């Protein structure tokens, strides 16, 4: 077993190299790459600063251009550039963001808590609603309750989380209809000066809608997974045996069947870490939340490739580790499983 997981961890390395190599290749051959973007920024700010400059182009001396190219390793063959990038990565150096003028690591870690905050709350709420709902639907299979909630499940599957968030913002954000919730953001301005009670209500006020948007993504699939898993287990022989020896329905379902039917839910937990930590580009953009997802989106728009690659590295590692974690959980909760 230990050998199996050791091998899995070793296999992370080629997979990780493959992914980063692919994306690095893409970003290296970009027209409008980092240097062009920088020059454009300089021209824009020069135009604003110069008195009646009329957008006169800022001439970059060839020597400075060469220095810039050297700085971004664009003068080297791109295998070498990738090698340098990888070597720096091994030393936990993801480079410097040209937009924020800070090390990429600092830019990313400063955004992490916000994404994790929303991700974790959404995750716990989703699981604590979907599991009881799925169980109840399975027990009452075919009842009016089951059919009625199935409609909400279908509806939840038919609307992407960010779209629901946007719809709620338009309806409740005060533009046209009801002014109940703020238009996104993480906290109100001047939050630090609020009293403790005000601080809490303000935070909840800003949290409710985004969390709803996060939840709807997993709501449908998680509920159905729970329901089907329990239904499948209810038809097993051991359930017949348990009933035959005279156990009450309550004991059979909650003591025996539920535990077995939670196995597929548990193994999904590993994949969830990627979702929790990485945030959602779309939801964070809709709600103007300054998390990892929004950072990823703006860095792509600004062609801040050091940050783009940094986020890719973290995302990829989370997905890969999450996959392994899922397998570990699988073994832990189901003793019948043996990987070798």
């Amino acid at each position, binding site marked *: 077993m230990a050998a199996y997981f050791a091998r899995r961890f070793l*296999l992370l390395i*080629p*997979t990780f190299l*493959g*992914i980063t190599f*692919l*994306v690095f290749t*893409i*970003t290296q051959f*970009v*027209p409008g790459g980092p240097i062009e973007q920088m020059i454009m920024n300089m021209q824009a700010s020069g135009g604003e600063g110069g008195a009646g400059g009329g957008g006169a182009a800022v001439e970059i001396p060839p020597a400075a251009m060469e220095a810039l190219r050297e700085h971004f390793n664009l003068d080297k063959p791109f295998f070498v550039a990738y090698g340098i990038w990888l070597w720096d990565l091994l030393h936990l150096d993801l480079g410097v963001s040209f937009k924020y003028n800070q090390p990429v690591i600092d830019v990313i870690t400063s955004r992490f808590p916000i994404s994790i905050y929303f991700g974790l709350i959404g995750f716990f709420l989703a699981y604590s609603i979907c599991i009881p709902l799925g169980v109840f639907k399975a027990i009452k*299979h075919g009842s009016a309750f089951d059919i009625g909630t199935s409609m909400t499940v*279908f*509806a939840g*599957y*038919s*609307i*992407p989380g*960010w*779209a629901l968030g*946007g*719809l709620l*913002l*338009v*309806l409740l*954000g*005060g*533009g*046209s*209809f009801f002014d109940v919730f703020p*238009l996104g953001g993480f906290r109100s301005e001047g939050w630090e000066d609020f009293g403790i009670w005000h601080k809490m209500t303000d935070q909840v006020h800003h949290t409710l809608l985004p969390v709803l948007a996060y939840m709807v993504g997993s709501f449908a699939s998680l509920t159905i997974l729970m329901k*089907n898993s329990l*239904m*499948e287990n*209810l*038809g097993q022989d051991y*359930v*017949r045996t348990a*009933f035959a020896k005279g156990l009450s*329905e309550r004991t059979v379902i909650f003591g025996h069947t539920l535990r077995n039917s939670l196995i597929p839910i548990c193994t999904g937990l590993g994949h969830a870490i990627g979702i929790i930590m*990485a945030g959602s*580009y*779309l939801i964070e*953009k*809709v709600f103007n939340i300054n998390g990892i997802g929004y950072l*990823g*989106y703006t860095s*792509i*728009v600004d*062609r801040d490739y050091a940050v*783009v690659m940094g*986020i*890719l590295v973290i*995302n*990829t590692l989370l*997905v*890969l580790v999450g*996959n392994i974690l899922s397998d570990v959980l699988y073994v832990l909760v189901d003793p019948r499983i043996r990987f070798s």
Partner: protein
Amino acid sequence: MANDTTQVEAKPLSILQRRWRKFKTLKRGWYSFLALVGLYLLSFLLPILINSKALVVSYEGELYFPAVADLLPFTEGHYSAEELGLYDPRRPDRLMRGEARYRLLQEQYEASDEGNWVLLAPYPYHPNESLLKEASFTGHPPTKPDARNWLGTDDRGRDVLARLAYGFRISITFALLVVAISYLIGMSIGATLGFFGGRVDIFGQRLVEIWAAMPFLYTVIIISSIVQPNLKILVAILAIFYWIGISFYMRGEFLREKSKDYVAGAISIGESNAAIMFKHILPNALTPVISFAPFAIVGGISSLVSLDYLGFGLPHPTPSWGELVGQGLANIPAGAWHLVVFPLGALFGTLLMVVFIGEAIREAFDPKVFSRLR
């Protein structure tokens, strides 16, 4: 005599026919299927339903059919204003230049009363046409729904209903293309890995793993921020990520079917690999692939809307749901709710129908019978 009766008996239904019949009995899915297919077919008639060009123009005894030309790719439907005798509203003594404007033309014909007439399309606005220059256009774009523009106009003064309708056709076409191409790739790769097994499988699985661990949406955004996608490129970008899911299903099915007796039988009578794969295994391996298809379509449609919303989707001025939502959400206090509510309503309705179809197909192809013991 006994033989005769057996010959009279109807040919037994194939499994596909039986599943099709079962699918038809599931009303919610069946009616969604009819409605969606009907709407999609109808959307190909959009040039004569929702168009700024007139259906028929009768000018000095001659008939012109400008809108019909839009239906057929190889015809030319452009008529200049001079050709049809359209005068410049600001200088009534002079003919207008450029392409004819048919709503204006109708007004002038009716006013002059010379026996010329124009038959406009039922909803006479084109999705890419800005109404800002119209004399009757009042207010600032985006304007709210009114009697003329039923769902309002967007921030460039284009009709929202027209953009939604054309956007529907593009969204469905896009999703169908993505699913078709990714199925072709995914099924071939999955079938090859599953059938040949061994080293091919181990090596192939590593490559698939690399592909599958890529942050999908993020990578798609990176690529389309670089290459300025059009419809073909965007379909290709999504298809190169979408095939992975199908290939897993296909590989599993082929692995399982390969070990069954009928395959051993086929091998022993000397059938070629290709014949075994396509004639024998493939029909048995289709169930999970078919029941997954509607959900792949849901994924395709929502990916397009998401990318359009982020601004990495189809180029301007393609009618797009996501772009409208982006306009509406960019400035919520301005109160352009119709730019968010209507496109998202269209998205929700479309996806709900596809989900209903998917649920019915799954029920027909892969019925789960739960025995409840107690």
